[in-house]
């Protein structure tokens, strides 16, 4: 690597230093100009045309300097100070003599002003690239509740949170991650609610990250997660500012990553998979029913094919006679064993799902029709597969969509369940279920047991886990995570913790 030169007092040389560093970059504009009143005082504004707003450059930087009557050739940094104090109309500035800093901030969208007879450069805030506007998040739609979703821009996202939590204790730590990508990452928490131990751990793990680029928050997720290889994520994700704010209020830490609307929340418990923000905006009974549906849906989507397989292959005596009769009729003439049928159809349906999730609307419809009609209907007629298998697999797929975040885990666990059930029947199913339970209980998220409150023992624990209690009953924050200040109420005097 070429050793960075230092700035000199001669502007032409300084321009040359930047030009040689960025020698092939043609988007960089070098605009040289002089003041109208005084001769021989040269200025040069250098900026990346793709990242800056031309308005700011021309109106707020060049025009004031051109028209100013105060400018004269001064010693060293005097002129720079005068410029930022009295002439330039720019919101933020920085004076520096480090070439590397100047180049870095220029590439991030700032303008650099070089001044005659000064070994320092002024970095001026002039960012002006196009951002996506705030829209409703695609993956977490609600019928009742705010329609705002996070965007790819960190500043916009922070503003969305600030508007919800205008409190002095709401802290945001900005940092950059990625040696090349230099991604803005904001660590947010509410001081006084967050457990210092957890916060320290998050900071420690973030500091250990050493990677060239962070293009999505999942990069961070996998690098700081307790169980990076696990199918179950131990760090939560959300696209909704309201849900992120709620997590902050429970004493969690959130990480906003530039370039993605997906925000990380931690520590993350298993039960949070089933808590949707809409639960809290609807009547609590509706919220509770929906939550129970999601839990039942998860259990069904991992175990339904396995239980069907067990009954068909090992425990035909367990079903009512009429069902046994219709099952045996539907199976007659089908060439494959049941487990192969199930795996084949899971494969076909997952293929259809994957195909439709990437294709644009009208093409996606074609795939769906081909999948549903041709593969579904025709396969039964051709006796390639029995009708109950299609019903089971389709229902399994639908229940799998109840909890989108668990989808990837469900797809694989389902197959593991089928495999062991094929060998051992219902015993295999139960053993696998036990194994899954042991595994989940062994997981931790930033020191907090992953299955905390997933199996409530006390009455209090059930309030925001299996059911969604009315707000007047939810007086405490989650255990361990909100330990610092368990009571949600502020006006009333705290009872004993």
């Amino acid at each position: 690597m070429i050793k960075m030169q230092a700035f000199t007092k001669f502007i032409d040389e300084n321009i040359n230093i930047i030009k040689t560093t960025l020698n092939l970059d043609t988007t960089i504009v070098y605009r040289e100009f002089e003041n109208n009143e005084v001769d021989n005082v040269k200025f040069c504004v250098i900026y990346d045309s793709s990242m800056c707003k031309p308005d700011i450059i021309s109106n707020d930087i060049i025009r004031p300097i051109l028209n100013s009557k105060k400018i004269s050739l001064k010693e060293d940094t005097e002129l720079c100070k005068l410029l930022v104090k009295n002439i330039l109309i720019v919101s933020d500035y920085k004076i520096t003599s480090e070439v590397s800093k100047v180049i870095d901030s220029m590439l991030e969208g700032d303008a650099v002003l070089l001044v005659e007879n000064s070994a320092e450069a002024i970095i001026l805030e002039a960012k002006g690239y196009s951002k996506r506007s705030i829209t409703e998040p695609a993956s977490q739609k609600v019928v009742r509740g705010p329609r705002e979703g996070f965007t790819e821009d960190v500043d916009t996202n922070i503003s969305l949170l600030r508007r919800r939590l205008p409190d002095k204790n709401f802290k945001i730590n900005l940092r950059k991650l990625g040696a090349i990508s230099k991604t803005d990452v904001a660590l947010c928490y509410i001081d006084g609610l967050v457990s210092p131990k957890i916060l320290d751990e998050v900071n420690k793990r973030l500091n250990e990250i050493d990677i060239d680029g962070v293009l999505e928050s999942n990069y961070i997720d996998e690098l700081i997660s307790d169980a990076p290889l696990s199918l179950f994520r131990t760090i939560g994700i959300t696209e909704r500012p309201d849900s992120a704010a709620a997590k902050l209020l429970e004493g969690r830490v959130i990480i906003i990553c530039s370039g993605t609307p997906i925000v990380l929340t931690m520590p993350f418990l298993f039960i949070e998979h089933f808590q949707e923000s809409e639960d809290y905006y609807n009547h609590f009974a509706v919220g509770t029913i929906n939550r129970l549906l999601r839990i039942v849906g998860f259990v069904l989507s991992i175990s339904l094919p396995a239980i069907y397989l067990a009954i068909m292959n090992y425990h035909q005596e367990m079903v009512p006679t009429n069902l046994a009769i219709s099952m045996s009729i539907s199976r007659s003439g089908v060439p494959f064993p049941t487990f192969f049928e199930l795996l084949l159809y899971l494969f076909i349906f997952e293929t259809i799902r994957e195909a439709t999730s990437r294709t644009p609307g009208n093409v996606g419809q074609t795939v769906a029709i081909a999948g549903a009609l041709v593969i579904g209907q025709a396969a039964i007629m051709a006796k390639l597969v029995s009708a109950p298998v299609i019903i089971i697999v389709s229902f399994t797929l639908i229940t799998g969509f109840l909890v989108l975040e668990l989808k990837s885990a469900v797809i694989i666990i389902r197959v593991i369940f089928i495999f062991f059930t094929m060998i051992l029947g219902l015993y295999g199913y139960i053993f696998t279920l036990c194994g899954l339970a042991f595994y989940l209980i062994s997981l931790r998220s930033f020191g907090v047991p992953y299955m905390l409150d997933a199996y409530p023992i006390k009455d209090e624990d059930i309030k925001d886990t299996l059911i969604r209690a009315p707000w007047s009953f939810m007086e405490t924050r989650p255990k361990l995570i909100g330990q610092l200040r368990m009571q949600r109420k502020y006006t009333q005097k705290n009872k004993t913790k």
Partner: protein
Amino acid sequence: MELYGDQTQAYWSTTNAKEVYSEKQDKIVLINFKECFQNMKQKIIIALFLIMIIIPLLSNRSYSEVEDRYLVIGAAFDFDFDKNLYNITVEVIASEDSSSDKAITKSFSGSGVSLFDAIRNVIKISGKRLFWSHMKVAIINKDLAAQSIYPIMGWINREHELRNDALILISREKTAKEIIECKPSETSIPSNVIEKMLENNKSIPKYPNIDFWEFSHDFSTSGIEPIAPAIQIIEVNGKRYPQVTGTAVFSRDVLVGFLDDTESMVLLAVRNKLRGGVLYFDKDITNLNTGLSLEIFDSSTKLKPRVEDDKVTVEIIVKSKLGIADTETTLNFQSKDVIEQIKKTSSSYIEKHIAKTVKIVQEKYKSDIFGFGKKINISFPSYWKEVASDWNENFSNLEFSVKVDAEISSTGLVSKPLKKE
């Protein structure tokens, strides 16, 4: 010893059990999150090793596809006395023959020197093995039953696939096979129809509803003898239908005879199994210038044995709730006298029939199908020990009395007789 005792005492007195629990639960335990990468290889090897051990240990032989075996829903047991061979006929769901989703059945027969041999010989014809868990009815030939029902009951109790709630019937035809093959139409399933007939015997108590469990319980309990519903074929408009009627009476493992419809009803009443049914009295019996039929809503029976001077008597106390179902002509049931009359008639009618039937069983069959002995065993165990050895002989000389308390609780939806004022 003492020292240790003291220490434990001290430990438990200072630490509350709940505290220990909460300390363990509510602690944020931070582990180095990169630790999971270490020991990974070791863990995988251990996991694979465990799986390799477990799978052969738990290997399950019972894997089979549902269409690889015939679903047996009914079976008929016969005995060929000329060749000394058991004949078994099973009704199975013919899943491969059904073009639509409607179930049709077919039957296969097999014969062999023993029952199980005969069952396995069915495969000679059917090709597939039989799956017995969904069997609903077992029909046993009356000649086979008259010889001994023991081989069949023995097999039923041993076979793990059979369910104890399958129903048992005795065929009054020449063979049991013809009943299970008696299909009034192409798509009818005789086993299902017979099962429904027995299931609904609450409304028509002219035959009992006996499953394997009850039969083998009666079979193996002293003081009560097993019974089973009897089945025959009737012809209606040139078509043959299976019909359940009457009761087969057993003495130990041997069929000794049959009871007709009315006697079966009495039998059920004494066994305290009567929960419905119809009583009909004609004009002469009622003294009300109309014949009428009463519906039995509920009935309960108590057997009260009494021992006096080494002689036992059993009192049969019946309490029935009846309702007027139909009358032949106008009946003024608003009058108290009429109701009293009906009560009296029905009480004496039931009394008379119970006495008659018990006498018949005592004299003709000498088999305690009513369970008097069981009751005596409960009330007077020491007396029972004396008489248990030749109970059926004692039973035929047993003295009994009948007391019936009939209550007319309903007259149907009408409150006034249907007539012109």
